[in-house]
């Protein structure tokens, strides 16, 4: 080899090596990023209350250098005992959601155009105050409305007081699914309030479509109870029967699923009553001493609901009806739970009356393992607000939407129509708090009505569909940034008060809605201002919770299991040995441990339960007799069935646990776990029975049109054998027109197809809807 050759060769080799080395380095640079670790820091845990839904779970938040990094259950909290549902787990995606409203916004374009101007808090409050002042000065105080999505706790009370002092009766609470059963109880027992179910102590559960495991009541409490009923006591397993047209998660987890036609709930329940009555399985003693009109009812049932008739009407085999009725009556205490929650909008008053009456038949009211009425917290009554002349005049105007003939109906039901028809007087201004009827109330007039109201103030933390229609947004803190009381969660028989406190510094320029309301009242001055003696909302909470101390009962949560039992025992024999000696100490301990509770509640408290004229449960209430016409039944709901038209179905808008509560679609965690039964993520779907789909030439994943009236939307079909052939199901909670990047324009909202009909007897809303499906 010559020297020159060698040099060439070596040079080439060197260049090659350099090139290769450079390439590897280049690739490394391109590939980028070795894993990293978020900054460590000082760890701290703070107890507070989850408010992703009204479930009222105690939570503890893990903080690292002031950043919230994990939410877990508060191990001592009686509702959840350290456990938490998926919504609770995803709470940080509310706090750290990039689409939160970061400061007050003033509309800067036509209504609904989503054009906003950032303004400061003083400007925002001045703006609202000016408007309210103008109204008052013009003698139009009664034209202010207030709409809240929730009527539990101190804040709604505060709002109501504000409205009263201002001079308006227009305080609205958005209708809830449990309204129907509450109405039924109100009519038959004469009591207003929410029901509580002693699930933990029951022996048999008959659930008429209640989403026990899907957001109904207090979700974690229900799931804990479920685990306990299954395997909590060796050899003692409680049967759960789920009756509904779709194999929901609750139905899948029940012992038995009866795929009942969606309009046959009442008939089926009365069929069970027929068996129980004719076989004399009912609680004779209870019926005799605590009900009136039973004989009349018995003959009504025996006359109209023979086993064979019911079997024929409901298409459920007579043996099944017979068996379930016997099981229900013989495994006492047993619970019959109506379709009241989980976002399912199909319960009517008639149905709930029929379903609830089963509890009465087996004497399960106010007894262990039965149905109770929730108890109010022993909070101090507020002094009567002083009213000026304007307020006094304003309060003479009746609330809009109030039905004279059916006073038990929620006035909000008529509100959209009344606003649009301009009957009596127009609403000039409206506050909305934790309420989003434009999206979640199936009345398409709501949006139009809201466009008609000249001035809408929203407290929303997110730009949801209703906030979009507002004129000014005064964004509220999220629940991890604010003080709030957490009153008794739905469905729970004992008294409980959680304390929600800020666990992080407010991330943005947001404020507590209570503080803002107090500030507005201050700015309005006069009697409106003097109605509020508190400095801010935190003081409202702390002052009112003093009542828990003066009530001389209950204790702060969070002792050891032994302490808990000991307290319990003491209280039962009339002693009270709290861990605190003053209201201030109680407040401090509630902050540390998360809340206060009183686990004892009286059984067979008949005076409290039956407040009718007769002091008994009335099978045929006097109150109703005033307006029911001859031949109308307060129990029956007509079983129609489909008209056998091909392509026509009952629409079942079903609730998902992860999207229950107010929002959820704006949390990516939720979007990733939407429909495990059909393996769907990030989108809506329409569930259809595979055989029907095959007849229509549809495959799994095909696109179809869902049609109802002039409404037509595209949706993806998922074949699911767990749905009746005459029904299709669409999950609730998607199809958002707003609410940020993760929620907007994703899927469809089944409520857009729902038309509200009023039943002829109670005039209560009936949501059962039929839709047509066409191949897209």
């Amino acid at each position, binding site marked *: 080899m010559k020297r020159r050759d060698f040099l060439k060769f070596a040079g080439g080799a060197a260049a090659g090596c350099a090139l290769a080395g450079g390439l590897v380095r280049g690739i490394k640079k391109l*590939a*980028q990023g070795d894993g990293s670790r978020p900054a460590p820091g000082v760890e701290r845990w703070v107890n507070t209350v989850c408010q992703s839904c009204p479930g009222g779970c105690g939570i503890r938040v893990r903080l690292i250098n002031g950043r919230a990094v994990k939410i877990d259950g508060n191990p001592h909290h009686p509702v959840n005992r350290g456990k938490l549902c998926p919504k609770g787990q995803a709470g*940080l995606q509310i706090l750290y959601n990039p689409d939160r409203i970061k400061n007050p916004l003033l509309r800067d374009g036509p209504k609904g155009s989503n054009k906003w101007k950032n303004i400061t808090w003083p400007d925002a409050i001045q703006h609202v105050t000016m408007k309210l002042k103008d109204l008052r000065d013009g003698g139009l105080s009664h034209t202010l409305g207030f709409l809240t999505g929730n009527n539990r706790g101190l804040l709604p009370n505060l709002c109501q007081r504000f409205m009263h002092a201002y001079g308006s009766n227009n305080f609205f609470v958005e209708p809830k699914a449990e309204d129907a059963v509450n109405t039924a109880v109100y009519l038959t027992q004469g009591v207003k309030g929410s029901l509580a179910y002693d699930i933990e102590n029951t022996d048999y559960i008959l659930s008429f479509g209640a989403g026990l495991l899907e957001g109904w009541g207090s979700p974690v409490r229900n799931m804990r109870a479920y685990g306990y009923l299954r395997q909590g006591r060796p050899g003692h397993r409680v049967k759960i029967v789920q009756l509904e047209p779709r194999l929901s998660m609750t139905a899948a987890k029940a012992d038995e699923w009866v795929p009942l036609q969606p309009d046959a709930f009442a008939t089926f329940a009365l069929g069970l009553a027929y068996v129980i009555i004719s076989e004399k399985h009912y609680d004779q003693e209870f019926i005799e001493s605590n009900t009136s009109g039973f004989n009349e009812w018995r003959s009504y049932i025996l006359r109209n609901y023979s086993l064979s008739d019911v079997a024929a009407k409901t298409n459920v085999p007579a043996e099944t009806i017979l068996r379930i009725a016997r099981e229900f009556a013989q495994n006492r205490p047993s619970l019959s739970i109506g379709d009241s929650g989980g976002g399912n909008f199909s319960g009517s008053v008639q149905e709930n009356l029929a379903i609830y009456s089963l509890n009465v038949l087996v004497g399960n009211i106010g007894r262990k393992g039965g149905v109770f009425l929730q108890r109010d917290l022993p909070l101090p009554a507020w002094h009567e607000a002083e009213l000026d002349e304007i307020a006094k005049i304003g309060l003479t105007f009746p609330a809009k939407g109030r039905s004279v003939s059916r006073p038990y109906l929620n006035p909000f039901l008529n509100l959209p129509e009344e606003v649009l028809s301009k009957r009596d007087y127009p609403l000039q201004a409206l506050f909305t708090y934790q309420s989003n009827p434009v999206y979640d109330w199936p009345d398409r007039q709501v949006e139009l009505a809201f466009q008609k109201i000249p001035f809408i103030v929203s407290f929303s933390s997110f730009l949801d569909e209703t906030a979009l229609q507002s004129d000014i947004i005064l964004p509220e803190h999220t629940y991890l940034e604010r003080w709030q009381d957490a009153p008794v969660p739905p469905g729970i028989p004992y008294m409980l008060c959680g304390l929600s406190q800020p666990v992080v510094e407010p991330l943005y320029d947001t404020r507590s809605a209570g503080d803002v309301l107090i500030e507005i009242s201050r700015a309005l001055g006069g009697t409106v201002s003097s109605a509020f003696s508190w400095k801010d909302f935190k003081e409202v909470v702390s002052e009112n919770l003093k009542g828990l101390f003066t009530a001389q009962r209950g204790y702060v949560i969070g002792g050891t299991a032994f302490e808990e039992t000991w307290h319990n025992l003491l209280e039962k024999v009339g002693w009270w040995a709290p861990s605190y000696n003053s209201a201030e100490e109680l407040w401090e301990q509630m902050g540390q441990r998360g809340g206060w509770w009183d686990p004892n509640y009286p059984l067979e408290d008949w005076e409290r339960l039956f407040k009718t004229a007769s002091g008994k449960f009335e099978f045929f209430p006097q109150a109703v007799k005033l307006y029911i016409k001859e031949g109308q039944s307060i129990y029956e709901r007509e079983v129609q069935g489909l008209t056998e038209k091909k392509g026509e179905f009952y629409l079942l808008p079903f609730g998902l646990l992860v999207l229950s509560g107010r929002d959820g679609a704006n949390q990516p965690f939720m979007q990733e776990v939407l429909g495990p039964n059909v393996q769907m993520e*990030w989108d809506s779907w329409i569930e259809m029975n595979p055989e029907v789909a095959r007849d229509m030439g549809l495959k799994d994943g095909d696109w179809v049109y869902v049609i109802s009236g002039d409404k037509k939307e595209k949706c993806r079909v998922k074949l699911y054998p767990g749905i009746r*052939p005459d029904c299709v199901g669409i999950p609730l909670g998607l199809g958002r027109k707003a609410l940020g990047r993760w929620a907007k324009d994703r899927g469809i909202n089944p409520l857009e197809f729902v038309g509200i009909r009023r039943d002829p007897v109670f005039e209560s809303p009936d949501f059962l809807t039929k839709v047509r499906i066409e191949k897209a």
Partner: protein
Amino acid sequence: MARWGMVIDLDKCTACQACVLACKQENNVPCVGPEEAAKGRTITWLKLIPFIEGEFPHVKARFIPRPCMHCDNPPCVKVCPVRATYKNEEGVVGQIYPRCIGCRYCTTACPYTLRYFNWNPPEWTEELKQSLNPDVSIRPKGVVEKCTFCHHRLQKAKEKAELEGRPLKENDYIPACVETCPAEAMYFGDLDNPEHKVWELARSPRAFRLLEEIGTLPKVVYLMESEWQSGKRS
């Protein structure tokens, strides 16, 4: 030496998916977004798997929460060319993210399809970055990740026990999924320790393991659903 294992009672499980999300929040598992999800790239270390059988009206739908099985005979560990996945002496199958070359052999070898690959760089909005857990490293793109039985919690529990000069107790070390389970359907502990609840439960007549026939010897044990019997009551 402990042999960590999990027992999931399907009779109690409500298929609520709290475990799924607790896991995601605890372990800094990124959300990949709708477009990537549609391609089948969602990362859920613990996933709820549906088994739906039968035709209407005789349908049975079962839902099984599926974390990593932490097999005693893990097929993934054998096939990794760079020893980036391993089984430690306490039986936990782990993944060394900085070593993984992203060949995805382990993901194909796992019969449970429970190993996840970072197809894209993980992303969080600036706001959501604040909620990341400092105990768990963030994986770069191009590597495989999986359930670790919240191994970082074991390390912390051990440190704490050592500091307090006592041995590790049964409930000192609990993964995030087990901690949150609302129906209390999940149990965790040492499968070799008769004092631990899981020891007893793993020997229940209701106990079974997923794909037992493949011989992977999973350390996640399921308890079958049981039946209601009329009149049976002690």
